[in-house]
């Protein structure tokens, strides 16, 4: 009786994505194994002003939240637009992948993805300027994420006057 009918009941929202953390200590297989059993989600495209409270409120709709770690600019130590949400159970995290991913928080469409698990240091942006990599190179103007991308900002500021 217990035929599964794979053709039918896909649950694609909980699949792991193509992203792999380049700083992960271990091989691809180990990382994938952790991703498939993880209770932790990476949450991206947050406004710099989105608070821990707002994240708690939204993600609590999927289950009890164990902890939230707000992503920080490595230099300024201020929020830089991402966070980690850890649940007590995998099932609750799966609900977040199904029903919160792709919806709005603080008026922005946020994106959730499986994370292999928080480790000290992973709360910092990896962009050269201290924030996230995506904010280094983007060309658009996003007032909730520091305005223009870092590179674009440098290009926009007039050249410093020569010393001589």
């Amino acid at each position, binding site marked *: *009786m217990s*035929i599964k*009918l*794979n*053709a*039918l*009941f*896909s*649950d*694609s*929202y*909980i699949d792991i994505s193509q992203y792999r953390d380049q700083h992960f200590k271990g091989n691809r297989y180990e990382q994938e194994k952790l991703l498939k059993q993880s209770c932790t989600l990476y949450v991206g495209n947050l406004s710099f002003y989105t*608070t*821990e*409270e*707002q994240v*708690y*409120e*939204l993600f609590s*709709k*999927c289950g*009890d939240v164990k*902890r*939230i*770690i*707000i992503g920080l600019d490595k230099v300024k130590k201020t929020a830089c637009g991402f966070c980690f949400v850890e649940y007590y159970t995998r099932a609750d995290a799966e*609900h977040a992948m*199904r*029903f*919160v991913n792709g*919806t*709005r*928080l*603080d*008026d922005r469409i946020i994106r959730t993805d499986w994370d292999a698990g928080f480790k000290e240091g992973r709360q910092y942006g990896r962009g050269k300027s201290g924030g996230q990599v995506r904010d280094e190179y983007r060309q658009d103007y996003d007032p909730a994420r520091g305005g223009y991308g870092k590179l674009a900002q440098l290009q926009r500021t007039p050249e410093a006057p020569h010393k001589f």
Partner: protein
Amino acid sequence: GAARRHSPHKRRRTSEPIEIEDRLESLICRVGEKSTSSLESNLEGLAGVLEADLPNYKNKILRILCAVARLLPEKLTVYTTLVGLLNARNYNFGGEFVEAMIRQLKETLKSNLYSEAVYLVRFLSDLVNCHVIAAPSMVAMFENFVSVTQEEDIPQVRSDWYVYAVLSCLPWVGKELYEKKDVEMDRLLNQIDGYLKRRQKIHVPMLQVWSAEKPHPQEEYLDCLWAQVQKLKKDRWQERHILRPYIAFDSVLCEALQHNLPPFTPPAHSDDAVYPMPHVVFRMFDYTDAPEGPVMPGSHSVERFVIEENLHCIIKSHWRERKTCAAQLLSYPGKNKIPLNYHIVEVIFGELFQLPSPPHIEVMYTALLIELCKLQPGSLPQVLAQATEMMYMRLDTMNTTCVDRFVSWFAHHLSNFQFRWSWDDWADCLTVDNEKPKPKFVKEVLEKCMRLSYHQRIVDIVPPSFSALIPAEPMFQYKYEDESNTSLPGFATAVTVTNAIKNRASNEEILAVLKEIPNPNQDDDDDEGDGFNPLKIDVFLQTLLHLAAKSFSHSFSALAKFHEVLKTLTESDEGKLHILKVVYEAWRKHPQMIAVLVDKMIRTQIVDCAAVANWIFSSDMAHDFTRLYMWEILHSTIRKMNKHVQKIQKELEEAKDKLEKQQHKKQKDSGDEEDMEKNSDDEDGQLEEQIERLQEKVESAQSEQKNLFLVIFQRFIMLLTEHLVRCETGSVDINTSWYKNCIERLQQIFLMHHVIIQQYMGTLENLLFTAELDHHILAVYQQFCALQL
């Protein structure tokens, strides 16, 4: 098109059997979906392919067809037609399929999978229309089902299910059965009529979303279905909504030989049978609500039943993938003849508001409605707005639990649409007392909206006239704030503690500082000064939380760092209660913070669940008693207690399993060596010890759990009795807003935790819900008991 056996991309000359099986599965599952060919030609083609595959893949095909019968009820008639065509081509296969279905039906009933069992019975009944099953044998099965109503000493929900199974098939097969066996069918319906008249319906008020009869009565599900079947019978079983592909194949099918269903005896009742709970049919729309376009079928039309069934089935199949679910709902066959958007919105809210609980997690419905709005931006948002308006208008009679869900849904929905809403349309809520349902609803919605945004945003989105309903700015209230408070007892120590914490004092150092605080409650002969000292708790916790007020993380860190101090201060029950008081005083403008701190304190065992329950019911908290955040805290507390018990029970089961496996293994390897035996005896001994310890742990946890519910129910009874007595002596109407809220909160405890509470019914009945209780309160208990009788 027909299946291709040779994939052009593979180098092998013939496909592996596993690939053919996957392809068969895919073909069968996908038939009936959007296609360039007609449904009839696809079914014809598929029947040909399957017939050809029968010699090699018969069992696989049988299993797939049985599975789609059970799991894809929204495509029922597509698959019955397919089976009909196969039976016409291969009589033996038809017979084997029917046998397999009966086996599956028995298994689903044994496994308490009652909704799937209904789909199977419905499938069998539609096979009568496809000339696979002979009508008289179907009638005989129905007669056996209905005879369950004659069984003695069974729960009502058992006979309910068998009656429901029969009635819910009649839209599909009523006509055919009446044509062949009208006398027997009349007898059957009379028996059902008699049963429906004598069954008790005490449970109904507890399950209704609205208590008012107007504009739409919230009917008990069997009553509604019976009315629908009666109407269908009056219309001489003419049913025009169901898609029946088999009609096109009538000339082929009527040539087929039919099978007789083997006599089916419903499995006997057993104590571990869990029958579906009764439910109430949710209705919020009628034909007057859809302004243009097709008319909505009436509440007692069988079309309404079929549409609702199918939409529920689609959600059940696709809830995990909201885009697919929305698309499937919106491509409902026959959608041009019905106001589909209205049906969809009604079915979704029906599930969201279902009591005791929705079939799926609440947030799914929010996400699904957002997807539907995206797919139908020109029409669905308007229907949704209309529905919201209607539900707002009827808040006065809406069950409190449903209002909670309405609040959560609406705020979350708004947060996805820039909080745009025509608040002015709801200006009437400003003209009545704030505790009345409408202003209360708006207040709670704005509070939840603020949690998803920030205070100023809420100020900006509502008209100035709504300012009284705007939540407070969520700021910390520091008791020892400034110089004006120097006269407060403990002020000086608060300053000392502040500095100590800033200078990274240890737990011991803090405790030493706190020792200097006099105990306002204490006699002088308290030597150690270690007893409950409310002032110590005030000073320390206010100061600590003040320093950590910046964010949740800061506060959690603070609780963790000074866990030792907090445990010491809250050793007694009074200490636990007082710490909750202090947290409340400090964060009373930020209920969300209170909730997460209480959660943390329970998890780190600074307070226990009973303390939280006592705090919620304490007279200090009476003014917030009807606020949603209080009940969220209480239910979260109960859930933590339940999960704790479950966790230990699981550990115990696992240890027992381990021991069993170990002993089993020992029996198998007859160890000759003495050493080996001694080691395994030791292992056994260790495990047995562990099991004993876990057993004690489980008993202790269950005792705590039972005590928690006793405390909660006791406090409810006290509060409600007080109110009822006061009203009676004063000759005042008992039905105040507070009373409605309180009695429905009591109901909510039963409904939200019914599985656990059922374990403690004996104690509850003996100790609390006795005949001496006021009948208003006892009624809630009796309605709850009636849910599984």
